[in-house]
């Protein structure tokens, strides 16, 4: 692609590239079905890792909200009454290493649970409230694992305490799982990227074979390898960019299709969470990766197959 101009200057050279890019595009447009199919294959292979990335990103956003709150849930013994619990809450809140204590009475917890769980009728059948009074303790020493561990131990040792649950334990597990998932996605993305290169390389290989005579003629009249390669590289580039655009469309449609289901799920959890799509930078990355893979795939095919086509 670096056939320097002998005459006509940089402007003419640039113009030539623009013309090659345009003619490559119109050549693709002249075979709309096969072009669309190739782009769709590329789009699906690009959309898959991008979509998974989006899922992980949303999940991480969701858990990010929880992570800041390193709250303990202290479930009190059934025998501990509401007044007693409130007193205890005051005592704990006065500690230096505690920022805030929220008291959730057994009745409140039951009402909330009835509303959110959908088991309302079943719970009505119970004579007694099975839920304990609960204190949600937010430590003032967030981030210091040793002090949090100490606080947890002291809370556990209180005579009124039935069970202490560190709410962030599962968040940490969740995040670890997300990390694992990210790595799996990365591997998948690399493999699928290789698939894109192969798909484009194969398409360009067929294109080169179909235009064999043309290549021979242009070689005979003195075209450099770069000159002959150029239209194929642009074709690969267009395949990649087109595939990237279709991939973005696929992702957008998928988001639209899942949005109401996610909203319903979020509302069941009492959350206003909504799925976020790819931002402009991520969208550009998808396009850029598509363009690069397209260019590279066609370059690879051209380097392999063009060399064998020589005039006889």
């Amino acid at each position, binding site marked *: 692609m670096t*056939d*320097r*101009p*002998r*005459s*006509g*200057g940089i402007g*003419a*050279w640039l*113009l*030539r590239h623009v013309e090659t890019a345009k003619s490559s595009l119109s050549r693709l447009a002249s075979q709309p079905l096969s072009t669309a199919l190739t782009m769709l294959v590329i789009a699906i292979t690009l959309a898959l890792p991008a979509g998974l990335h989006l899922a992980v990103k949303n999940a991480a956003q969701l858990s990010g909200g929880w992570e800041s709150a390193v709250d303990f849930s202290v479930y009190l013994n059934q025998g501990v009454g509401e007044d007693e619990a409130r007193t205890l809450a005051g005592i704990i809140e006065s500690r230096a290493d505690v920022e805030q204590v929220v008291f959730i009475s057994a009745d409140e917890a039951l009402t909330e649970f009835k509303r959110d769980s959908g088991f309302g009728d079943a719970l009505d059948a119970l004579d007694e409230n099975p839920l304990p009074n609960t204190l949600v303790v937010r430590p003032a020493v967030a981030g210091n694992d040793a002090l949090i561990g100490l606080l947890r131990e002291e809370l556990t040792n209180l005579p009124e305490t039935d069970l202490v649950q560190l709410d962030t334990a599962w968040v940490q597990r969740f995040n670890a799982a997300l990390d694992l998932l990210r790595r799996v996605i990365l591997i998948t993305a690399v493999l699928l990227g290789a698939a894109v290169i192969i798909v484009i390389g194969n398409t360009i290989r067929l294109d080169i074979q179909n235009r064999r*005579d*043309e290549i*021979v*003629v*242009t*070689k*005979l*009249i*003195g*075209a*450099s*390898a770069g*000159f002959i390669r150029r239209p194929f590289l642009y074709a690969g580039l267009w395949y990649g960019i087109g595939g990237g655009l279709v991939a973005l469309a696929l992702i957008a449609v998928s988001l639209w299709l899942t949005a109401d289901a996610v909203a319903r799920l979020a509302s069941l959890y009492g959350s206003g969470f909504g799925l976020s799509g790819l931002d402009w930078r991520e969208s550009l990355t998808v396009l850029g990766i598509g363009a690069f893979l397209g260019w590279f795939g066609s370059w690879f095919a051209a380097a392999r197959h063009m060399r064998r086509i*020589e*005039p*006889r």
Partner: protein
Amino acid sequence: MIHLDNVTKRYPGGHDALQRLTLDVDMGEMVFVTGHSGAGKSTLLKLLALIERPTRGRLVVNNEDLSRVSRRRIPRYRRDIGMVFQDHKLLFDRNVFENVALPLVITGTGTREIGRRARAALDQVGLLRREKQMPETLSSGEQQRVGIARAIVGRPKLLIADEPTGNLDPELSLEIMRLFERFNDVGVTLMIASHDLHLIAGMGHRRIVLENGMLAGETGRGAPAWAREAPRGD
């Protein structure tokens, strides 16, 4: 302009297409290469176009030793010689103008200059008004003239043609040959392979006769009179 020194071309399988051929063509000459098919005409032109490399011997074209032209530099070498083919080798998805302009596009010539020179070349072969047509819509003779316009658009000093009239009737063939003569008049060196002996004999240019890859005779330029009789061949 062209200098062959003991050039041998042996194809895989052991067939010697050219055997120890020594030949000189001066600048500004117009030379016909004749002989039976398989005599080595095409091989000679392929060596000149660097489509093939000689097995032995030295080949100098336009002061350039072809053994020193690397694979990478072949395109640059080919830009300096015009080539005309029996089957025209036009690109059928482009119109006449684009076909003729292609060598200039390859060298990165400016758009305006391309238009000027491509039209001048088309004018020389008498096809200026057909520039927008597709090659398919032209007759075989016209297609060959497009091929010739493409060969001369880069203003080469050397033009080589392999059976340029092979598919044409005698009248059109003569027309094409006259066209070549006109280029010769302005200083272009021409080497034309042809087995159309009647046509060639009437034109009175130098003739090189190949047989089994060897020089079998030569006419023109002080060649003996017996050789002027056109031997019959296919």
